[in-house]
Structures are given as C-alpha cells and as structure tokens.
C-alpha cells in the first residue's frame, strides 16, 4: 500500500492524483465559478510534484519501488521510480508547470465557444496522468494501460475542435497509428515475457534471449515506440495531429509525449532486453539520421506555423535517436564511456527539445490567440505588437537552431563528441558511417537555422501582411509567464551544462553501472565529456565574453562623434516614392524556394501557374512522399480484402444454407 512508499514515489503518486483531480475539477468548469483556476492550479501542482519527485529520484542512489492494489489479481500495478524514470518525470513536470501557467489565458477562447471546456480540461488531466504512469510503470500491463490511456486522451484532445474535417482526419490517423504502435510494443513485451516468464519488468530483465529473439523483440519495440515518437517513415500522423490540438496541448504532445516514447525505447532497449547488439545501433542511427534530415526539410516547406513546428519535432526526435544509436553501437562494441556519452547526449537533447519545442508551441499559441492566424504568409512585424512573446520566441528559435550559448547547442555538441569517438571502433564501415551521420546532423542543424530564420523573419520581423496581424494585442500575463519560464530554462540549460550533467549522470549510473565521471571532473565551469585535451566547452565563459564584447563595442562606439540614431524610410528598391508595400517582402515560401530546388527530388512538389480573370495564380503543394510509399498501399490492400470478403454476405438464403451444408461436410470429412 502507498503507506510504505519512499518519499520520491509518494510525490510521484501525488502528482498522478493531482492530475486526476485537475481532470475531475475540469468537469465543474462552466458551472462552478473558479473551477477553471482550480483545474490549472492542480495541474501545476502535479507538475511541481513530478519535478520534485524526479529530482529526488535523480539524487537517490537506488530505485524506489511500490505496488498499488489495482490491475490483475496476480499482476498488481507495480511502480518503480529510478533515475531514468525520475529524469523523465522532471521533463514532464517542467512542461506541465509551464502549460498550467499558460493555460488559463489561452483557454479563454474556448469558454464561450461551443467546444466545451470540461472536455478539454478533463482529457488534459487524464493525458498527464497517462504520461506519468507510463514513466512509473514497472510491469508491462500497467505500462500498456497507461500508454493507451495517454494515446486515447490525447486523441480526444486532437479531435477537440472536430468541426474541421482535417482535425477529424488527423485524429483518426493518429489513433490508428498509435494503436498499431501500441500493439507492436505489446508484442515486443510478449516476447520478453515469454522468455522471462512474466510481465513484470524484473522478470523481463532476468530473461535470457537468444540473439534472434532479442532482435525480434527489439525490432517490435523500435517500430512501436518509433511510431509514437514519429520517426520517418512512421511519422505521418505527427504533422497532422499536433497542429490540430489546442496549442498548449500541442506543446504537451510535441514537448512531452514524444519524450515518453523515447523513455519507453530507452527502458526497453537499455534496461529490459539485456544483451545489446551493435546492428541495432546502426539501424537506430540510420533511421534517426533519416528522420532528422527529412523532418527539417519538410519543415522548411511548411508555412503553417504549427505544422512546421510539428515537423521539427520529427527532426529533433531524429537527433535524439542518433544519440541513442551511437550509444547502442558503442555499448555493444564494448566502449562504455562513449556509449554512456551517447546516451547522455540523447537525454540532454530530450530535455532541451522538451523545453524549446514547448516554448515555441506556446509562442505559436500566443500568436494564434492574438491574431487567429497560423499561416506565416499572413504574419509579419509581430515583434513590435507583442514584444515579450517575440523575445521568448527568439530564444526558442536560437535554442532549436543549436546556436551557442543556448541549450540546443550543448546537446548537439555532445552528440558530435560521441560521433568523434568512432576512431575507437574496429570495423571500417562503422567508423566511416558514424561521421557521415554526424555530417547529416550538421546539415540538419544548418537547415534548422535556415528554417527558423524564415519563421522568425517572416512572423516577427518585417511588416504585417494582414489586417488581423496588424492589430494584434499582447497576450495575458499568465501566457507570457509560461513562455518566460521555459525561455529562462532554455538559457540555464545552455549555460550550466556541467551542473545539469552531474544530475544526468545518475541515469546511466543506475542503468549501465557507470556515469561520465570525467565530464564533470573539472568544476562547474568546464564541460569535458571525454578528457580536457580531447574537447572542452565552457558555456559561462562564452556567454560572458559575448556580453563583454557587445558591451565594449557598444559603449566605445557611442563615444563616436555621432551618437544619435536617425529613423528614416528604407530604400524603396527603386520603386520611386515611399515604401514598397508589405507584399513586396519575401514570403516564407519564397525564402525556402532555393532549398526546395536543391533538394527537389525528396519532395512530392506540385507546382502550377494558373491564369484566371484575377490574373496569374501560382499554386504550390509540397506533399510528403511517405504517403504514397508506405500508407496508400496498405489502405488499398485492406479495402480490396474487405471487398472480397463482402461476397460472403450475398443476401441469398440458399447460398447461406449452402455454406452450412458445405461447412458440415468439410468438418465431417476433416475429423473422419
């Protein structure tokens, strides 16, 4: 019973209960005054409890276990909170807190719309409950229950604004793929359970699998979790579903739910399967690189802000899996230090992505809230309309573009460092494959930077392209606070990587029996993953130096003969008097056009120029190739099968009787 739980686990359970309470109190919204505030208070409480539980778990040397009197009689729900689970609790908690602060302002739109607030709030709570329980689960049954609870409740959230057909379609696709993934995971657990004799994780850890069955289990889990995480080519649902949900939910889905999938993969591969094989690492590495590249390229082609961010989730998940793949390769070939480094890099990027992707989605939500616009082509000049959001969004852009001194850079730097350890490996193939993956990572980073120059430049800079955007108002204080919270965390995680790494070390410490002792050996100032002479990075100094140079140059130049800055019109580009209109600005599509031409064959581009009475009309559709390659055939096949089967129900009773007679004869013949 919960009575004898350790403190960390108690806090975790408290988080679950608080989230449940938030779901419950949501049912009162609309009728009971203040229920809305209570709902978000409880949600925030859940987040805080999760964070504290996670920190406790990271600090404590061993795992906290407990049992709930629920589930199957012979398989009660077993909870286990070790460093890995703790870390992910931390990730979930932080974002949930931000969302709880942001939410009250954002949902104001829904209070008077016909999409009822109670539904939104209730499923948000359940969604958080599901994610927390997945992380806490210590047996496959509870894991699957929580996992599907997470999928189901998030599905309801995706379908929340169900009057647009696109959202319905997205929700259906999402639930379908989530279900397929879940069954694949279940099958993977089944293999482990068959060898370990039980669905409890302890039994699975003890299981001795033959390499073949190990690979089977790994493959199933990889497909299952990859489908949830949105790895190419299993990503099709992601860019559809994430934009469909309300923005703070998109933040939760992109920022946290995908991480829960990462958690599942790590738990399954690094913890349960046992004997690792380097081939797995190669698979993960290749798929990860593919996802990173395709994700960012497709993101560049989007001009719907939330869709673009969703594609960036594909990219960042790819980066995370690159790290995991490197870790797998190194661990399986007996280079624990490099392996641990890979795992750490992946975890670090997991945290970072959770922070900045949620930040960006909250920002997109703020824009949506203020302008009811998601289309970049109609934005512009928002920085002057909503300065705070603009500032925080800029932080998010810099972080996701992996620029120093923000957090995205650190994790990519660590990944590069891991890749550079490939000289340790024997096989020439691996040794040359890994740097190529690193090059892909570099390309991805550069393209991401390009993409966010586009986003920020088009949305926040320049001049407004539509009336509603021109009249945008700043959003409420709570919404700004939520973004600011995440932005601050982004900066901190970028500037104090060493301190963060000290916490992170506990994860591989418990999982693989060793951490990166060297990385943090030279004080909080220096991050030295392998050894000081190999590579080192001191984010605080960098930040300091940047600020110093900036200040120096600024102050020195102010001393110049002319201080003042005079405002004037920009150059008219030879258009004679006055400014060229806002429509003369580069659009998002135009910005991405060179890249679209360079990487043309990766997209399914449908570009046509039509002439109608309004003049020339240029239409451009960039479709995801994954559809025609992977999804359409399956659909066609099922339809055909259904058609064949349909003939059974011919409607003629004599045919039916014939079936009975035939069946009877066949069976009699069978048993004689």
């Amino acid at each position: 019973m919960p009575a004898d739980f350790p403190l960390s686990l108690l806090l975790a359970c408290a988080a679950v209960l608080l989230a449940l309470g938030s779901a419950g109190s949501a049912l009162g919204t609309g009728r009971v005054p203040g229920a809305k505030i209570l709902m978000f208070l409880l949600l925030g409480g859940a987040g805080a409890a999760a964070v504290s539980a996670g920190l406790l778990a990271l600090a404590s040397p061993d795992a906290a276990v407990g049992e709930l009197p629920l589930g199957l009689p012979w398989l009660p729900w077993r909870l286990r909170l070790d460093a890995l689970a703790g870390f992910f609790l931390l990730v979930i908690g932080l974002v949930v807190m931000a969302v709880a602060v942001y939410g009250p302002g954002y949902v104001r739109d829904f209070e008077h719309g016909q999409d009822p607030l109670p539904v939104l709030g209730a499923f948000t709570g359940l969604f958080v409950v599901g994610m927390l329980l997945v992380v806490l689960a210590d047996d496959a049954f509870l894991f699957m229950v929580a996992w599907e609870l997470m999928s189901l409740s998030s599905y309801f959230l995706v379908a929340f604004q169900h009057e647009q057909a696109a959202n319905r379609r997205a929700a259906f696709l999402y639930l379908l793929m989530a279900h397929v993934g879940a069954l694949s995971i279940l099958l993977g657990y089944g293999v482990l359970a068959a060898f370990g004799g039980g669905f409890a994780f302890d039994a699975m850890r003890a299981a001795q699998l033959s390499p073949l069955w190990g690979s089977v289990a790994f493959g199933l889990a990889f497909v299952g979790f990859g489908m949830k995480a949105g790895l190419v080519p299993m990503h099709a649902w992601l860019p559809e579903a994430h934009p469909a949900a309300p923005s703070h939910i998109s933040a939760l889905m992109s920022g946290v739910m995908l991480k829960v999938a990462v958690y599942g993969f790590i738990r399954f591969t690094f913890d349960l399967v046992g004997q690792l094989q380097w081939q797995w690492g190669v698979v993960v590495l290749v798929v990860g690189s593919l996802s990173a590249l395709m994700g960012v390229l497709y993101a560049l082609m989007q001009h719907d802000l939330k869709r673009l961010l969703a594609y960036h989730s594909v990219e960042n998940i790819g980066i995370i899996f690159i790290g995991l793949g490197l870790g797998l390769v190194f661990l399986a070939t007996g280079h624990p230090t490099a392996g641990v480094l890979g795992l750490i890099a992946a975890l670090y990027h997991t945290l970072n992505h959770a922070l900045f992707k949620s930040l960006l989605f909250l920002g997109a939500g703020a824009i949506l809230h203020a302008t009811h616009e998601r289309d970049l082509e109609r934005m512009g000049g928002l920085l002057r309309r909503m300065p705070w959001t603009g500032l925080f969004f800029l932080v998010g852009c810099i972080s996701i573009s992996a620029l120093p001194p923000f957090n995205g850079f650190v994790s990519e730097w660590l990944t590069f460092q891991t890749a550079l350890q490939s000289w340790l490996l024997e096989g020439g193939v691996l040794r040359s494959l890994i740097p190529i993956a690193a090059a892909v990572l570099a390309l991805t980073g550069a393209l991401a930077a390009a993409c966010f120059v586009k986003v920020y430049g088009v949305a926040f800079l320049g001049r407004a392209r539509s009336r509603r955007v021109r009249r945008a108002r700043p959003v409420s204080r709570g919404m700004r606070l939520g973004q600011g919270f995440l932005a601050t965390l982004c900066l901190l995680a970028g500037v104090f990587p060493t301190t963060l790494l000290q916490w992170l070390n506990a994860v591989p410490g418990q999982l693989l029996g060793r951490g990166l002792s060297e990385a943090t050996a030279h004080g909080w100032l220096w991050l030295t993953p392998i050894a000081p002479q190999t590579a080192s990075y001191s984010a605080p100094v960098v930040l300091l130096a940047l600020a110093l140079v900036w200040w120096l140059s600024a102050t020195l130049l102010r001393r110049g003969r002319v201080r003042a800055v005079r405002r004037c019109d920009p150059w008219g580009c030879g258009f004679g008097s006055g400014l060229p209109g806002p429509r003369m600005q580069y659009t998002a599509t135009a910005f991405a056009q060179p890249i679209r031409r360079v990487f043309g064959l990766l997209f399914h581009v449908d570009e046509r120029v039509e002439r109608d009475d309004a003049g020339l009309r240029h239409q451009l559709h960039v479709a995801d190739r994954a559809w025609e390659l992977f999804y359409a055939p399956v659909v066609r096949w099922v339809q055909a099968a259904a058609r064949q089967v349909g003939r059974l129900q011919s409607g003629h009773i004599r045919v039916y009787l014939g079936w009975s007679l035939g069946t009877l004869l066949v069976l009699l013949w069978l048993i004689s």
Partner: protein
Amino acid sequence: MNALLIAVFLPLAGALVLALVRSLALAGWLNLGFCAGSLAAAVWLALQILRGGDLTGDGFHVDAFNVYLVVLTALVGLTTAIFSRPYMAHVCRDGQVSEGRMRLYHSMFQGFLFTMLLALTTDNLGVLWVAVEGATLATVLLVSLYRTPESVEAAWKYFILCGVGIALALFGTVLVYFAAQHALADVAEGLSWSALYAGADRLHPTVMAIAFVFLLVGYGTKVGLVPLHNWLPDAHSEGPTPMSAVLSGLLLNVALYAVVRFKMLVDGALAATDKAAVAGHLMMGFGLLSFLVAGLFLHRQRDIKRLFSYSSIEHMGLMTFAFGIGGPLATFGGLLHMLVHSLTKSAIFITVGHATHIAGTQTIEHIRGMIRTQPAVGWGLLLGVAAIAGFPPFGVFTSEFLLLSATMQSWPWLTTALLFGLVVAFAGLFRHLHPMVYGKAPEGQQPVAANMLPVMAHLGLVLWLGIAIPVALSRWLDQATFLITGSHLL
C-alpha cells in the same frame, strides 16, 4: 434451489402475465420488475453456489461457470428492460408498432430471458436444445416486429438458418445420447450433462467426434461463427434495438456456453485418442476465421446496427478462439471477455437506439455530429466504441491482453494474426464512428429523452474491471476456469 427456481421461472411467469396486460405503461414497469426479481434471485443463487459449491438435481446443474452467466444474463436483461421501457414507448408513439404487438414484445422479452436462463441452468442436454430452439422461436417474432419487408426477410433468414443449425445440433445431441447408451450404466440419465461428464472417458470417441461437428455447426450458427453467421447482422439490424442488445449480449453467449459444455465432454472422450485436441482446434479455426472476416466486414457497413453486429461476430470469434486454446489463462480471458463484451456491446446498442431516434434512421450517412446534437449520446457512443475496440482503461483491453498473452504462450505465430485483426477491426469501427459523433450537427435533429443510466452503469462496470478486477470476481472466474480446464490459474 428456491433461488434457482425463482430466477429461472419468474421470467416464464412474466411472459404469461405480460401476454395479458393491456396497459403499455404498466407492461413496461412490470417487465422491469420481473427482470429485477430474477436478477435478485440470480445474485442470491450465485452467493449460494460460491459458498456451498455446485448444485445438481431435478434436472438442473449449476456451478460457478453457468451461474456466472446466469447473473450476467439477468443483469443485462434488467438494464435492457430499463432502456426498453421509454424506448418502446417512443416507438409505439411513432406508430411503428401496434398495442397488440407491444404485448407480444413484452411477453416474448420475458420468454426469451426464460429460455436463456433455462438453457444455462439445465442439466439435460435435450432440454438445453429445447431451450435454445425456444429462444429462436421467441425472438423470431420480435425481429419482424415492425413488419417491414426488410424485417420480415431478416426474420425469415434468421428462422431458417437457425432452425437448420439447431436441427443439426439436435442430431449431434442424439449422437451423444447414442454414445451415452453404451457408456453409462443408467441409460435414463444419458442426457444428463453431469453424468456424462463423470463418465466422459467411457464415451465412444468417434461418435463423440462426429457429434461435436454437428453440435459445433448447430450451436455455432447461433454463436455467429463465419461462415454460418449470415443471419446475425440481418436479425440484429432489423429487430427493435432492445432485442439487438439482448441478442448480442446474451443469446450469443448462451450458444457459446453450449458449445463449451459439449467441448468439455468431447475432450474427455477423446483424451485417450490421437485426436485429443481436435475440438479445441476446430474452435480455434472457426474463432480466428470469424474474428478476421468480421473485422474486414466492418469496413463495408452502411447501417449502424449491422456495424455493431459484425463487431459482435468478431468478439464471439475471439472468445471461441480463447476457449479453443483451452488452458487456464485463455479460458479465464475468455470468460472475462464474455462479461465485458456483453456489458459493452449492450451499452453500445442502447446508445445506438437513442442515436437512431435522433437521426430518424439507421443509415450511417445520416447520423452526424451526435456530440453536438446530444452530447450524452455522442460521448456514450464514442466511449463505448473505444471500450469495445479494446482501449484501456476499459476491461475489454484486460481480457484481450490475457488472450494475447495466452496465445503468445501456446501459439506465438497466431498472435500476429490476432493483432492484425484487432487493428483492422479498430479501423473499421472508427472510420464509421468519426463522422457519426464528430462534426457539425445536421439541421432539424432534436435531442430525445435518452435514459443513459444503463449505459453509464455498463461502461462504469467495464471501466472498473479494466482498472482493477475485484478479488471475489477473480476467484469466481478462477473457479469456473477450474471447472472448464481442470486447473487453476491463481
């Protein structure tokens, strides 16, 4: 014993009484009252059995297995009666059904319950047959209650196909009796299941094998196993909705119950031979076939009630498969699935009844935006389908989890087939469900006076079972498992 007699014969009395009651309102309440009474008696009986052990005599045989189904039958009967009272009143007000036929309806409702309970509790295989046939006769008139050409056609198909099937079952019963005559000392009890079970090993294997084929085809027709299922969607879709609820929730279970009983005998008889597991294998084959085919059928439906009747076929296939595997885990899962499926499916049919009243049609294309028109109905449908599709935290997931793990233990490769079927069926359900519940509300559709209490009760139970199976219930199921497989799970 009294509890048993009350539980079984109260509905019979109800049938007789209701045949005479003219007042519609009174009939509705009486119907409800009789169901409540028999439920109370059934619970009482269950307590007796669980405390005092099996109860055999006077041609009855009650053990943990069938008392479980007795309670389930009585429960679903009651909730359906609760739903049926306002629903049928509405139907009657629409003038679809005349007063006289309402009397027929209520009387036959009770009659149907009586045959169900009799079939479950009797010890005499002949009486079992009579009862199941009686169930057909009782329901066939209800299927054609509306007297539309479609309903008549459906009733005719139902009647002929089930009649033929049941006739074959009788032939199988005769064969069993024939085998018994040369195996049992006392020919008089040659049809007593308990006696046969006691002496199963002495029954002539070949005769029993042939008999089982006939029984499987016969009762399997009623279970709705592919390719004997054709009557099922017709009968479900054309009859009044409460009928569909009890057909899906109860009749199929009882037929499956009969098959399982006979399987127990046949397994005993064939234990020594080289075809020891043939019965199980036949059931597995039928079950898997039905499961997969029905899943594909879901994609082609235009009528909402046909949709869910195919889903019933699918789930019956799953249960048949489970009992075919045998083994404690699979059987436990199968029993649990019987429970959750009956509860969920009847809840769904109840909701569908309201939905069809709102839309004024059963055609899926015209049922739109339920959540907007009447949120309670829309959400009921949505959650019910989510439950039946096997999403946690609903209990269907639990039982399917058990079935899957049992399959993984004994037939690992079949697991993939099961998972494939699950996905196909899920897609088939939701692709139709989505437009029905979501989207804008169509013009001119008014909310109806919907009584969602039964639905909430059922789904609540299913939810509870999904989150935690009470110890008492698991003991109960384990006892039943022990009866069927001869070994405990717990």
